[in-house]
């Protein structure tokens, strides 16, 4: 299994869940499984063309997928994938 960490601002769309697991062996497969399970997430992760939005970063381990093979990056079992959102503050 591989897991993906959902950041706090997006947990509203996963029923509060912060961790999603799937046997998918690529970043794309994992993200597809994630939005198939939590449809409300889709517009927050992908634009209308199906590309990842510019204010979202996806990491495999400590490396940005842009430095790897993008969403085609293969995952070995047990890899941790993270979605990193832009957050501005929690002050107001």
């Amino acid at each position, binding site marked *: 299994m591989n897991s993906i960490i959902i950041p706090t601002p997006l947990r509203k769309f996963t029923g509060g869940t912060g961790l999603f697991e799937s046997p998918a062996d690529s970043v794309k497969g994992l993200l597809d499984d994630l939005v198939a399970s939590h449809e409300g997430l889709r517009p927050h992760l992908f634009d209308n063309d199906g590309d990842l939005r510019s204010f979202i970063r996806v990491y495999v381990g400590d490396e940005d997928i842009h430095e790897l093979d993008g969403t085609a990056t293969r995952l070995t079992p047990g890899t941790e994938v993270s979605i990193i959102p832009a*957050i*501005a503050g*929690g002050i107001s």
Partner: protein
Amino acid sequence: MVNPFTKAELERYSRHLIIPEFNLEGQRKLKEAHVLVIGSGGLGSPMLMYLAAAGVGHIGIVDFDVIEDHNLQRQVLFGVDQVGASKAQSAKDRILALNPHIEVTVHETRITSENALELIEQYDVVADGTDNFPTRYLVNDACVLAGKTNVYASIYRFEGQCSVFNYPRPDGTRGPNYRDLFPSPPPPGLVPSCSEGGVIGVLPGILGSLQALEVIKVISGVGDVLDGRLFLFDAATFGTRTLKVRPNAKNPLTGENPTQTELIDYEMFCGLGGAPKEERPVEEITPIELDALGKKGEAPVLIDVREPYEFAIAEMGGVLMPVESVPERVAEIPKDRPVVIHCRSGVRSARIIRMLEDEHGYANLLNLKGGILAWQEDVDPSLARY
């Protein structure tokens, strides 16, 4: 090396001076440093206290705000007696009481594209403790254009991020900046805004302290700063991660094809400026009018579309039907008599009314003008504001 310290300072800073790699030299660098802290709120509170206590010689504070009751949950610089007073001035008084050997300059102003470069140029290091996307991008861009290191932290509910942007490297280049991580901000409304979100009070205490630590490391040159790395902290799970931040070819300031050479309109950039979106007005009722109907025995049906945790803080007798649940509970909303819908300030309820009118044919809905906040102000002062 000339010893710039008085006996009182040497004694005060002795626990720094006896760290072999920090010593008098590190302390001298702190004393000579000029640090600009933008925002004296949740992040700024611990940051300012630690920077002052540590002996950063010249601290600037940018804040235009006044202290409010709901700040005290996390902004530990301030006390009950200072509610209503200037944050920047109160912060200055507090940190000078902590360390009289430093200088503090108050900039009681909102940082804008017009004044940012002039403000930042007076300082060596900038620490961004602001709370909104336009100011985040403004501070980042100004630091890149002015060639200053930007010590960054940001928080949301249980989650915190910290990094050091635009850090000068030995080869003369600068480390990645915020635009490398996020070239552009989320459009408003797509990611929940912070005022909807809240924050656990200790979290800015932790992240603001980390920021102070990084400022001290940047100035003293001791340790490895968070250059090219993003530290993440999840207070809910105690999870921590440190991710790599790489230069981004699409960065409009420092990417392959830079398109931006000056500061821009950041409200517009973040989709917050420009002409307000034309939305169809909805029928409204004021709190006074609603109260009068109730007193005549003609109280309309009242529906509260806030979240349960908001309802728990203050409620005015409506049926709780959170926004997300309305589509599946439409049958509970009558069509044959007046129905008033309310939320906190009237925005969500107006949106729900438009949806019900457009998709379900309602023509009997009224929006409570100003929401429960206006009701509290005009009718029932016993309710708590939030």
